[in-house]
């Protein structure tokens, strides 16, 4: 080895002080603007057009919803102002939009049902919560019974029976979605397992059901439930007018859920099935203990997306005369005592905000879940 200290240093061992980056790449608001808004003349022209568009749209919405809106007063104040939204209208109709014609003295029952539901759903969706199996048990078994007892009423428990004719508003929308998810998940799992089964008849039955239901519009399924179900059964068994669309929504969404679950089942490596079989575990235990827990976790984002679709589809039940939230808005909107130039727009704006809030929240949850799952698979 040669002695390095004898050589004159030709390499400067001390680090040079860092120089500032050239002016046009220096991170400053100006370079950001140049790079992201005016990189080419075409891009610059687009920026100007889109800024104008965005400002115009924002101005329209804000001036209608906030700046020019009527915040207090009554019908007259609203009629006098054709420029902005009429929020007193929403304030006055708020209870109607939430409960429909549900008797005022009994509305605490709706509140209680929704509160229990909210707690259970939060428990289920929060992945780090303790004892989520218990939550699932409660949500899928106990909750439907409790909700039925509370909402409809049982005379024995001193809860007067409320006719379903009186139910309406957000209550119906939430009820439809919850019933949809509570029933569609188990039925969907069964259908998905059936579709992947080795037994030809089971497979054919499940496949036909899934493909037929997915091939037709939801409205026609509702029509079928409404017009044909009473023909299918003896008179004394005719389902309640609210029960018919509920059955329709449960069957309709279970076909979609089946496809989601099937995707999850396909994503599980074959080794898992084979290992379970090699250990002599029976088919149902293999599914219950090994395959389904993994498959369902993978497809949580898709389940949430399906649920968002289901939530939006509940608006269609108005076609068979059920007063869901949107139908309640429609009814409130045409109330002659509130007739005014901006009532319709206000109603639709409010309905849009409510639906958007629910759906956007759910889609954000599904996205965060997706990221979490992606992280889990990498490690």
């Amino acid at each position: 080895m040669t002695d390095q200290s004898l050589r004159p240093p030709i390499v400067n061992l001390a680090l040079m002080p860092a120089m500032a980056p050239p002016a046009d790449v220096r991170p400053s608001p100006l370079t950001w603007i140049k790079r992201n808004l005016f990189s080419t003349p075409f891009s610059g022209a687009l920026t100007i057009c889109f800024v104008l568009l965005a400002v115009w749209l924002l101005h329209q919405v804000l001036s209608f919803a906030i700046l020019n809106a009527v915040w207090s007063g009554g019908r007259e104040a609203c009629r006098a102002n054709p420029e902005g939204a009429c929020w007193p209208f929403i304030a006055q109709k708020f209870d109607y939009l939430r409960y429909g014609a549900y008797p005022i003295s009994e509305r605490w029952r709706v509140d209680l049902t929704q509160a229990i539901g909210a707690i259970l759903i939060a428990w289920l969706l929060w992945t780090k919560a303790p004892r989520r199996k218990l939550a699932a048990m409660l949500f899928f078994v106990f909750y439907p019974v409790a909700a039925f007892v509370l909402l409809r009423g049982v005379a024995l428990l001193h809860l007067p029976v409320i006719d379903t004719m009186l139910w309406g508003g957000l209550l119906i929308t939430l009820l439809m979605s919850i019933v949809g998810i509570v029933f569609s998940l188990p039925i969907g799992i069964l259908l998905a397992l059936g579709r992947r089964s080795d037994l030809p008849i089971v497979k054919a039955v499940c496949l036909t059901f899934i493909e037929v239901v997915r091939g037709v519009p939801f409205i026609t399924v509702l029509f079928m439930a409404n017009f044909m179900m009473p023909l299918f059964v003896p008179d004394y068994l005719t389902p309640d007018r609210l029960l018919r669309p509920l059955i329709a929504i449960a069957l309709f969404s279970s076909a979609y859920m089946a496809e989601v679950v099937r995707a999850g089942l396909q994503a599980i490596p074959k080794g898992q099935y084979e290992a379970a079989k090699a250990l002599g575990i029976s088919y149902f235990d293999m599914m219950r203990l090994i395959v389904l827990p993994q498959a369902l976790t993978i497809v949580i984002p898709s389940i949430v997306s399906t649920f968002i679709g289901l939530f939006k589809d509940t608006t269609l039940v108005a076609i068979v005369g059920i007063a869901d939230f949107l139908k309640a808005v429609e009814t409130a909107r045409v109330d002659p005592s509130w007739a005014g130039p901006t009532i319709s727009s206000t109603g639709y704006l409010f309905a849009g905000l409510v639906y958007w809030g629910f759906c956007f929240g759910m889609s954000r949850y599904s996205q965060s879940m997706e990221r979490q799952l992606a992280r889990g698979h990498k490690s």
Partner: protein
Amino acid sequence: MSDLTLSVQPRRSLSLHNKKVRGIFYQVLLAGSLLALALGIGIQTTSNMRARGIPLSFGFWNEAAGFDINQTLISYDTLSTYGQAFWVGVVNTLYVSLLAILLATLLGFVVGIARLSQNWIVAKVATSYVEVIRNIPLLLQLLFWYNAVLKPLPAPKSSIEIPGGIYLNNRGLIIPEIQLHPGAGLVDLAFAAAIFFCIVFCFYAKRAQRRTGRQLPVLLVSLATLIGFPLVIFLAAGEPVSFIRPQLHGFNFQGGHQLYPEFAALLIGLSVYTGSYIAEIVRGGVQAVAKGQTEAAYALGFSPGKTLRLVVVPQALRIIIPPLTSQYLNLTKNSSLAVFVGYPDLVQIFAGTVLNQTGAAVQVMAITLAVYLAISIVTSLAMNAFNRHFAIVER
């Protein structure tokens, strides 16, 4: 030492512990109970229908319908039969769906590409559009377009007049009617000839590029031929086309084509709603194309536009097309929401009016479901054929 060989005998008993027997048993059980259910429902339904005086046959098909439909593409009047009303519904459903598919695809591709734009504000506006529209029910959007945008337009008397004899009012958009005079056929011929020329020129240009590497201005030449040649013939034939301008008579317009607000609301609603889904599909497809492809194209000196058109989009299409088809099917199914705004589609005419008038719920619903199923099966078959054709052939 004792003998360690075990006597292995496959179980051949007919007990439920045998997997094969068990499978057959379950299937027989399922098939039996389904058959019993179907039989029970069948018997109950026929007896219920008899008791309520509902017709059991398809005899209503040839009876006079007796109701009018305001928007038809095929001939129909109050004397027509229920069968003809059915076909009007089918054609109307397909018509609005196809138009909406066209618009939604255009909108979706533009927005999807815009979401990936380098330009911050363009990407943000596109993202906001997708996030807002996707999270609001289609029905609410349809009602909004119909009740809050199109219906509050002024009455025919005080229509908004757009230059060119176009009128916009709460009965719709009224445009001049085109009337053809003798000699108009020549213009059609000229147009066909122009198209033929363009195709030939395209082939020629491609070959020329292969041979010499030089690119011919295909787009410019095609556009010039397509517009110029028919125009020359049009002028030479003495302008064989005239317009019938709509005239206000009493409360409504006479003459001219009318675009009804029901149709417009459905078309706008479906296109805007489905467009947001297509945008997401397009974005996903483009992002799925490996970044190296774009970089390689840039390294070869392709412009960003050409990179997108010649390198990225053809590869992205393979990923985009299957979900795109399912969106097209969704759109077609969603066109049944026409019933809420009163556009006469299949559901509104057939499962609505015809069902109410004849009471033949079972037959009408069966036919309606069959139509939608047929549409979705035909589309899936076409889709599978397409996929086979375009799937990447791997070694």
